[in-house]
């Protein structure tokens, strides 16, 4: 019974951690789905969002005394507006000038962007880690001996809401279908009257929005905010591959599977099987390879056939 409760407890924590991976993976997926480009700066977009939110919270806090619910909401709104502008700027700086260049060039540009963003934030905010504020404090919820922090709960709920929104957007709206069409064949889409450039811009804006929301949620969970937060993007990458690159459902499922595996292997599995402790850092990769051997396009990836 104790083991069972432990497993549930670890799974909930793993789902919260996995939801963060999932949100980052969702950012990867959005850009990939529309432009077939992998944005390696996704983790850094998240880090920038977390810093901007911290800036807003502390700015209003010094004027009003301490962070209240109102301040968190204002900071959140400010961060969302920032993400909107930031995504739009990135589209102009990174995406548009390189639109017709080989995908490899765009990927290299996103890697450069990640390095530049880390350096810029360190220059502006200073090298010291910051202590982020959480709107939920240390509040917890206890159900039959299973405990979940309000922060983790908010992360999970946010992930669910964002997935539903994006799923609806991509499958049910005109712009969503336009994005899918652009992804399939940009030239044909343009000939059909789809404003491809605007679609690309929208994708980068969405990606920055998701990244900012995940940054705001993740910062208090990490206890300290520093530029290394961006490296978490690299952990979310295998999650996106596991779920199937380009699939929104896949990004979420992949992220959650990765989070749960990480937590349970460090917890109950290591407790009962000592040898697992020795291979904790590779277990996620073993699962990834095993899945790809059976399903090369990932769990929810679609096999694309291109005529040559």
């Amino acid at each position, binding site marked *: 019974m104790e083991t069972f409760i432990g497993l549930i407890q670890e799974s909930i924590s793993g789902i919260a951690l996995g939801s963060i991976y999932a949100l980052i993976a969702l950012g990867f997926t959005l850009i990939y789905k529309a432009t077939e480009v992998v944005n390696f700066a996704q983790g850094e977009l998240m880090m920038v969002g977390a810093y901007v939110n911290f800036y807003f919270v502390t700015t209003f806090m010094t004027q009003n005394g301490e962070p209240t619910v109102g301040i968190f909401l204002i900071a959140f709104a400010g961060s969302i507006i920032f993400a909107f502008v930031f995504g739009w700027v990135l589209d102009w700086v990174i995406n548009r000038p390189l639109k017709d260049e080989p995908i490899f060039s765009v990927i290299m540009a996103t890697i450069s962007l990640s390095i530049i963003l880390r350096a810029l934030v360190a220059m502006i905010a200073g090298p010291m880690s910051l202590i982020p504020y959480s709107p939920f404090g240390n509040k917890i919820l206890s159900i039959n001996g299973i405990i979940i922090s309000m922060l983790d709960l908010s992360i999970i709920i946010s992930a669910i809401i964002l997935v539903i929104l994006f799923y609806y957007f991509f499958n049910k709206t005109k712009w969503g279908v336009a994005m899918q069409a652009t992804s399939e064949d940009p030239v044909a889409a343009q000939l059909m009257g789809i404003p491809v450039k605007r679609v690309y811009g929208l994708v980068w804006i969405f990606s920055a929005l998701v990244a900012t929301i995940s940054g705001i949620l993740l910062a208090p969970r990490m206890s300290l905010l520093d530029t290394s937060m961006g490296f978490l993007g690299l952990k979310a990458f295998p999650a996106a591959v596991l779920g199937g690159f380009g699939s929104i459902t896949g990004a979420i499922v992949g992220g959650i599977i990765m989070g749960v595996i990480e*937590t349970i292997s*460090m917890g109950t599995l290591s407790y009962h099987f000592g040898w697992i402790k020795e291979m904790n*850092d590779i277990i996620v990769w073993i699962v990834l390879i095993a899945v790809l051997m059976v399903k090369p396009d990932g769990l929810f990836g679609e096999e694309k056939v291109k005529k040559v």
Partner: protein
Amino acid sequence: MKKATGLFILTGLLVMGCGNRASAPGVSEDKILIGNVQDLSGPMKELGAVLPAGSNLYFRYVNENGGVHGRQIEMKVEDHQYNPQKAVAAAKKLIEKDQVFCLYQVIGTSPCEAIRPILAESGTPLVAPATQSGSMSDMSREAADLIFHTDTGYDKQTRILVDNILADNVNAKIGLIYQDDDYGENVLKGAAVAESSTGVAIQKEAYQRGATDFAGQVANLMKGGATHVIIAGVVKEPIIVMKTAAAMGYAPKFYGTSPTMDHRVSLAAGPAGEGFTSANFASLWNSDAVAAVLYRELCSKYEVPEAYMGMYHFYGFITAQVLVEGLERAGQYPTRERLVNGLETLNNWDGGAFPPITYSQTDHAGTESVILVEVKEGVQTVITDWID
């Protein structure tokens, strides 16, 4: 014949004149150049900014008071991004191209281990490597005769913590959360010594560097019934571990090795961090220790940003004191060999922050004791004298 006699006299004069003045790299009439390799843009770049700033604070004070034997100390800092290969390249550049007199405060266990062959090959001393790994003072290792450690090793810290826990509570069940790398390896070494000397079994849980979730490890310690948990992490880890445990309703007494001593641990952990006790190899920067008083005076005099002030900035400051003492003892005409010999004369030397430091030809550990610091009502409070 006259020519030969003249040459003989000239040579004699030169030899006599330079008897004590053998020139050393990095040493000129008015300057000594020191090399430092930090992580300026990698995962520990925060320390890369703060440690050299603390050292430079003390060098500035020394330089304004006439320097060491009339020479100003200048420090050149290179970046290794916490990458051992880059540490090798940076150390090579400092030694061969910049011709530094010695290396100082190179940060990280793995980078310090990687540069051992270069130290040995060039005969360059490394003073106060910025790592508490006990391997730094293992005299059987390569270039050990050139490395002078100032900090009590993680292995000894762990052993002292276990002894202290058992002295307080003989029935304590001890758990240990450690980073799965060189740092953790040294901690495990100390845990093994403690296990064999006390006969107590320690429950060990590992984590990967950069981990952000500790629910599994905390749940395991809870299942194992650990009443006292030692966290061998840095800053984030103790905060997350203690918050996770509090959220799970699990309340063991938490302890930490020296890197967890950062005051932000108690700030960020809040009520969950109350009672957290960490081992430290030096007095606190805000204590009444002689070096700490001088440090705060200089911080105020030179208007050091408040964000910099704290244990790591102070660490840079007090290790600079050890280096300066070594340079003083190396004499008016320093060579690398004289620096080594000079440092080896330190016998219970008290700089006012570290426990008394003693070096000899066969022992470069410097210190072997720590103080314990407990968070009481959110304030770090020293609860023991130096213990070993």
